[in-house]
């Protein structure tokens, strides 16, 4: 398809015609694949996972390089500033010692109270931990790439959290890396509740790094700026009592909240098994059970 007029050569004319057909075929194949991947997003799991195994380790390596460079710069800076930092750290240490003693006392008291209430500590085993090494920075979707995959036991639709709060859930799994649907993606809906009062709410991503929270019951807007949203455990996928977001702005029928776990500053993300796998499986495959 190089030039508009291939001249009198039959061969060149045929070549032009066939390359035209090939491009049309490319468009048609592309549209079919696109339709399939919109209608049933799980159809290309294998090939998407394989691609993740190519990009995941590259991203991990580059992430290490960036972190090292950053460390060197801040390290040099710290050295320069050593004397002042030393004094500050000593002061901090003294303050922390006092806080630690207080904390120990509180922990003891907590233990006693727990024993009194016979509360069972609900500890859950993590499937794997990984670093968040990349993101979908050129797409309206909000995905992140996690540096752990099927080799570490990660399966699709496992919840991902960090020390700060809920990060999202797994949607694509490769052997070495996986893709996370962040809570700020528009397609992510987290059943949650308000920490203050326990009113059930729905947290849906807005696609720009924030989430929109709406109360399940229509009525008065229950939110106040600064309110914490935690997962409710409804639906069986996300475990309950994981912090999700903090309300920053009120709207007519809800509020806009900022996720507590910022993927950019999350050093380690923890992948957990689905909270109630049976409930999730039943929800995902209603058609198979007659």
């Amino acid at each position, binding site marked *: 398809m*190089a030039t508009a007029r291939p001249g009198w050569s039959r061969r060149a004319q045929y070549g032009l015609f066939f390359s035209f057909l090939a491009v049309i075929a490319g468009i048609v*194949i592309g549209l079919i694949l696109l339709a399939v*991947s919109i209608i049933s997003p799980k159809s290309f799991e294998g090939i998407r996972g394989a691609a993740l195994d190519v990009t995941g380790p590259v991203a991990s390596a580059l992430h290490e390089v960036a972190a090292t460079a950053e460390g060197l710069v801040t390290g040099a800076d710290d050295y320069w500033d050593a004397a002042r930092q030393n004094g500050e750290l000593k002061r901090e240490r003294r303050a922390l010692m006092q806080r630690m003693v207080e904390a120990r006392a509180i922990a003891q008291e907590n233990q006693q109270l727990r024993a009194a209430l016979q509360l069972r500590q609900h500890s859950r085993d993590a499937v794997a931990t990984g670093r968040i090494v990349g993101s979908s*920075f*050129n797409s*309206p979707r909000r995905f992140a790439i996690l540096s752990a995959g099927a080799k570490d036991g990660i399966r699709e639709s496992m919840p991902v959290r960090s020390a700060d709060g809920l990060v999202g859930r797994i949607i694509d799994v490769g052997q070495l890396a996986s893709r996370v649907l962040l809570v700020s993606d528009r397609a992510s809906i987290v059943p949650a509740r308000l920490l203050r009062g326990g009113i059930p709410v729905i947290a849906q*991503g807005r*696609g720009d790094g924030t989430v929109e929270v709406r109360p399940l019951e229509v009525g008065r807007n229950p939110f106040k700026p600064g309110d914490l949203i935690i997962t409710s455990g409804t639906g069986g996928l996300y475990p309950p009592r994981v912090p999700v977001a903090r309300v920053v702005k009120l709207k007519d029928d809800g509020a806009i909240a900022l996720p507590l776990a910022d993927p950019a500053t999350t050093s380690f993300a923890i992948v957990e098994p689905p909270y109630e796998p049976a409930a999730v499986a039943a929800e995902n495959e209603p058609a198979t059970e007659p």
Partner: protein
Amino acid sequence: MVRAALSSPKRFSQGPTRFALFVPAATVVASSLLAALPIISTGGWFPDFGYLALISWRLLRADPWPAWWAAPLGLVNDLFTGYPLGFSIALWSATMLALDLIDRRTMWRDYWIEWMVATVLIAIDGWLQWRVTRLSGADVPFAMMLPQFLISICAFPLSAWAVSRVDRWRLGR
């Protein structure tokens, strides 16, 4: 002229590099791989690097690669960027076709016309991405696509410049 004659004699080994035929496609794949950069952003403001490289090459030359290569290149872009599979395959093939049709119509072109064509193509890319995102269950407002659109338009001259440098290198000029 005089200066050129006085300068050192031209190298005899001058000529296209060995893989000159595959360099353009390789740069497009490399641009798609930029999606693996460890940038963790909560807004999708970065341009679609693969598509920018594709249209830069295609606007620079009519035959950077056989037209049907757009489909496999698009597949690579889809896999690396996490777009729904098939999106770039269809869009990139259609772009090759559209630019061939434009080539037949236009009598002359200059830098501004190329930039305008690129702007239109980038806008179509963004709009289609938005539509497909809505279809796949994430109805983001269209205003969210605008920063990416503006940044992509500003990034096109850079990409076109880089591509023209690579082209000169590959042809050994």
